[in-house]
Structures are given as structure tokens and as C-alpha cells.
């Protein structure tokens, strides 16, 4: 089992997310986003827990696990697979591509020994591409967790990676 999960009690994480966003059908995406944010992904157990806590047939509120999986697998920012402690999101869109994005991408892959979507064996890093984050005038752009880095050069990569434990 992933070490992250041991640190967090899934039931508690889900409960906290539900308290914050409410027990309504339209809260499902915010709830799952929150679980994803805390745990790094949405384990099957968390989906079971969301269903258990939100589903209430007496009040006409029907939630199925399949529906939760449907949401989790549809949106790019939600993951059903475990991810590393830090997720690097690299913008692969045209505006970043034309200002040297490819070289940054190659350096990242080389430094981490990862391909798109992979996680390092020590669970530290996951490398993924992202949709355009609209910082096109300072491309190439990458995100480490929630930190945005712009006008990135290849020689900055080791230093940027070095900032994360």
C-alpha cells in the first residue's frame, strides 16, 4: 500500500471533503478534487467511502461507485492511479512548443528517467503533460505541484527539482 495512504485515514479525508463541500450531487467533483489533492489520487476505497457517506436513497440522492469512477476517469486532473509526492505538469501546447518546450521536456525526462504519466520507484516524482495553463507569454511553462515556473531554461531544471524534498 502507498505510504501516503497510511499517513492519511481515507475515511477522515473523505469526511473532511464532504463537510467542506456539502452532500449534494454537484459537490461530487469538488469532493473528488479535494481527495485527489490530499492523497495525490483517488483510491477505490475513497470512492466507496464517498458513496457510503453521500448516497441517501431516502432523500432521493443516488450515488453509485461507477458514477464516481466515471467522473474520476473523465477529468484530466483527477487520477485513479497513485502518484508521486510531487507531480510535475509540463505544458506541451503550441505556444510553449515553439519557444523551446521540447528541450525542457527532454531534459525533464532525462533527469527523472520518466516518460509521460510515469512515477519514480521511490514515489517522489510523477511526470505528466498538462493542457494549456494560459501563461503563454512566459513559455516554456511547467508546474511542480501548485508552483508555476515560467521562461524555464534547461539548466534551471536540476535547481528547480532540487527545491523539493
Amino acid at each position: 500500500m502507498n505510504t501516503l495512504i497510511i499517513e492519511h485515514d481515507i475515511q477522515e479525508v473523505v469526511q473532511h471533503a464532504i463537510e467542506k463541500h456539502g452532500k449534494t450531487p454537484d459537490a461530487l467533483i469538488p469532493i473528488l478534487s479535494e481527495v485527489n489533492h490530499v492523497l495525490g489520487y483517488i483510491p477505490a476505497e475513497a470512492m466507496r467511502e464517498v458513496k457510503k457517506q453521500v448516497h441517501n436513497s431516502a432523500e432521493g440522492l443516488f450515488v453509485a461507485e461507477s458514477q464516481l469512477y466515471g467522473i474520476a476517469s473523465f477529468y484530466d486532473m483527477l487520477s485513479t492511479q497513485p502518484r508521486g509526492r510531487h507531480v510535475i505538469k509540463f505544458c506541451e501546447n503550441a505556444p510553449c512548443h515553439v519557444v523551446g518546450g521540447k528541450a525542457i521536456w527532454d531534459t525533464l525526462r532525462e533527469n527523472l528517467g520518466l516518460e509521460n504519466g510515469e512515477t519514480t520507484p521511490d514515489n517522489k516524482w510523477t511526470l505528466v503533460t498538462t493542457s494549456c495553463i494560459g501563461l503563454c507569454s512566459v513559455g516554456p511553462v511547467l508546474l511542480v505541484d501548485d508552483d508555476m515556473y515560467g521562461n524555464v531554461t534547461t539548466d534551471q531544471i536540476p535547481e528547480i527539482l532540487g527545491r523539493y524534498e
Partner: protein
Amino acid sequence: MPFYRSHVLVCVDPECLAKGAHDVVDAFQDELVAQGLLDEIQVLETSRIGGCSNGPEMMVYPEGVHYVGMTADDVPFLVEEHFLKGRIVEKFREVAKVVVDEELGPLRPKEVRVVLRNCGEIDPMNIEDYLAVDGYQALGKVIGEMTPEQVIDEVTKSGLRGRGGAGFPAGRKWGLTRQVPGDIKYMVCNADEGDPGAFMNRRVLEGDPHSVIEGMIIGAYAVGASYGYIYCRAEYPLAVETLNVAIAQAREFGFLGNNILGTDFNFDLEVRVGAGAFVCGEETALMASIMGQRGEPRPRPPFPSVKGVWGKPSNNNNVETYANVPQIILKGANWYASMGTERSKGTKTFAVGGNVAKPGLIEVPMGITLREIIFDVAGGIKDGRQYKAVQTGGPMGGCLTAEHLDLPLDYEALAEAGSMMGSGGLVVMDETSCMVDIARFFMDFTQAESCGKCTPCRVGTRRILELLQKICDGKGERGDIEKLEDLCHEVAKNSLCGLGQGAPNPVLSTLKHFRHEYEAHVYEKRCPAKVCRPLIRFEIEQSCTGCMVCARNCPVEAISGERRQIHHIDVNKCIRCGICVQVCNFNAVSVSS
């Protein structure tokens, strides 16, 4: 409230962050504690002090000293010198201060700013800044002096059309939503700006959120809505934060909530954050996502005006459309309609990118020509190259050529030329762009973003992409171009929503205007722009000095030759990465096709 003698503003833009701005802020806080200055000096994080090229950057007020290029280790020295001894540290001082906002600089020639007028001018986190520039006066005018019908009339008369790209008249949409019976109606703002390279809405949300909120409240009054959602994409965390602050402040000032401005008009608003799905920019998919479902579109009718969020009548406009409304109310429909063409009024924001000299965000009056936008506003083509084409309307738009340069900016004119207005991405291409490769690039995007609900889009975009890839790989066969054309028409005709219907546009428009490039790829196995790797060859010419730089940089050791002798590329080993062309100081590596 504490009174600080100095304020230190540290830039935390992405580029300064990359250079350690957070470390500098932390070091500053530590040093202020150590020196007992915490009550006297305030450190704030801000954005866009300068160009960030020599970051981290900071401004010290009230002196107005601009420091750049320090590290966390320099902070104790800086604090001691500047704040204890009162001496400006020349070493870090930026003397020639040139404020460069890479996205939105000073007004360019031929620009007219309506939507962007406050961006970079006011503090978006402070409602009083907005109030100082006539903010919420339009709302006051509407509630105090106008009936909902008059508001709709005014917006209709202004000629404002949907800025999300489709161009449906905003006033008419409001009128339709008003007419539908129902006691609960919703206002929806589409802030799911997903086109790659388009960031106009992000800048408005981050720089002037109240203009959007005010536009929505006015719209709610007009259509009779009591609640609203702003659906903002999760890729814009700063926009979400700014909106939430702005909504809370608007509530505090009585512009949102019950009894707005002392009347019996009630309206409140919340931000809904997406989770990463391009198709959620489609209005029915967006509403499904608001309701907590997979963001899949559904057939229309019924249109959202009749059946939208929670099955209730809902009015959906995009960020830019709403942001125009307060100005239209304040300055009048005639003022707005005085700009533009017969059918398209007002202004439009664009994010200009690609091979232009001055990329960035612009706002121009409708009716301006593409030539004026590219050559006068955006500074022409970069590096003295030749203009080739411009892609308007994002990944579902089309390519326009030199013959369209004098086309006036107008919804219908662009559509007649085989493209569309779209949300406002403009990618300008010079002669070094291969149009087949560009079509493949856009198709790669739409194929990945197809939600999979309807077969023509799910399977069709994949097959179109495969055909384009085959042609770019030099494996195109007789009949492929015709097959591609047929497939594009089928996908456009049979797809459920705008994504699938528009996906073939880049292919169809490049086929229309650059068919000879497709034919060169298929029949002559040649890429005229020398872009598609399997179709190009690298050769070293007589001007080679034998400096060996190319040989050292070649990743596959395909280059051989003695020092001071002309080098040679082994075409069988060469992977056509182009590194030798980049590193050669003598322009001795030629590319041919």
C-alpha cells in the same frame, strides 16, 4: 491597524518563482524577525514589477527603489543596508527601470480597450479600486432607472454578440431566457478558456474580476435570475482566487446577496472549478459539469435558455461578453455600436502568438483587417520572414492566407472565408511552417480532447489524425487526400457538439488554401517548408570550416570529418533532429526536401 514605514513588494510571477522568489520572501521574513523590524516593514507578494528577466525582483516603497537579481543569501545584507542604515544597495538596484508586461503592455497602435481597460491599472483584489473607475455605477443605473426590458433592449441595440466564439446576439439570448416561464433561473459564465494559446479571459478574471461580476448581476436583473455560476477551469488557480475575493467583497458592499442596493432584487454567485476537460467549454457539457457529472455534451434543443442547470432556464455567456456589459450600460448602446462593422459591433480581445514580432494580448475594434492586426498591432512577422498564414478561432478554427489579409474582422466574413472568430486565439505563421504539420498538430489536440460520447468525433478524429500522420511520415498514397476530405466532411456533419463539428476545420481550410503542400507530401514525398522529418535531408556544404561543433553536438554520431576538413553527415544514421543547423556558426548545414 499597524502602520508600516516601508512596504516591500516581491514579484512572484512564474519566472521570478523559478529564480527563487519564495526563498527571498522567506529570508526577508526571517531577517525582519531577527532585526525586530516586523512591525515597521511589510513584505507583500505581488506580480509583474518588471520584466522578470533578472529576477527575483522587488520594489521598496515609499522610496520606489527597484531591486533585482538577489538571492536569499543576499537578504540579510540588503535589510541591514537599506532598512537599518538607510543606504540604497546599488549592487542590486535596477536603474533603467522599464516595466515590461509581456502579456499586456501599453496601448499599441490601433488598439481600443474596453474589456481590458482596467487590467494592470487597478488592484483586482480591492473593490474600491474598481469603484474608483466607475465600477458598479452601471448596476446602480440599471436597478434605479431601467426595467429589465430596457436593459435587454439596450444590450440588443449595442450589437454585442457572444465573445465565446459563436457570436449569438447577447441581448437576444437574454430576451429568450427572460421569456421562458419559471421562478428559478440561473446565470452562467463560461470561464473555461481552453484553446491553447488563448488567455484573454484569464487576464480579465485576474485583472478586473468585478467587471465580469457586474455584467452578470446586470444580466441576472434583465433575465430574472436569482443565482449564478462562474465555471472557471482549474488550470487558472489565480483567477479562481481573485474571483472568490471579488465575490466576497461584492457581497460585503451589497452588490450581491439579498436586497441588492436596497431593492427587492436578490442574486448571488459562486465559482465552480473544473477538473481538466477541454470539452467543458461547450455549454451543455459545462452545465453537466456544474451539476457534478461527466462533462459530456447533449444534443440541442432544448437550449440552455429553456433547459439549463438543474433543468431550469439558464443564460450562458462567456467572460468577455459579460465584461462588456457595464460599459455598454454606462456609455450607451450607440457608443458601442459606433465601433465595428454592420454585423459585428464593439471590440474583440485576442491573444496573438506564433511568428510575430510583438506577441501578447490585444483588444481591437471589430472591422479592423487581419493585415492591421498582424502588421500594425503585432509588429509584423519576426526576423524579417514572409507571412504565410494565420489560424483564427483556435483548434476548431481555420487557416487564412495572404489573400485574406484585407478581410475585415467580422463574424460572418471570417466564417465565409472558412474560419471563425472563435474565442480569440491568433496563431501567425511564417514560411517556415508546414501546413500539413500544423493541421496534424491541431488534430492531435482535438483527438485527445474528444469526450468519446459520439462515434463520429471519437473515431473520426482518430482516423483523420492517423491519415495526417501517415502523410507527414512520407507514407501517403494516392487517394489519401480525397479520403481525408470525405472523412472531414462526415465528422463535421455528424458530430454531436461544436468540438467534433469544428475539429476538421484546420484540415479543410489548409486543404483548401494549401492543397499543393499536401500533394507534395503524398506524390513527391517532399515537405516544401522542410519541417516533416522523414521527408527532409541534412547536408554539409562547402562553407564548412571543419570546426567540429556539429560533430560534437550530434546525438547519434552521424557526423564525421577531420578538424579543418569539410564534414559529412551519414544519412542512414541521421535522425533529422536539426541540432547541427542550430549549432553551426557558418550556416554550412543545409536542409533540403
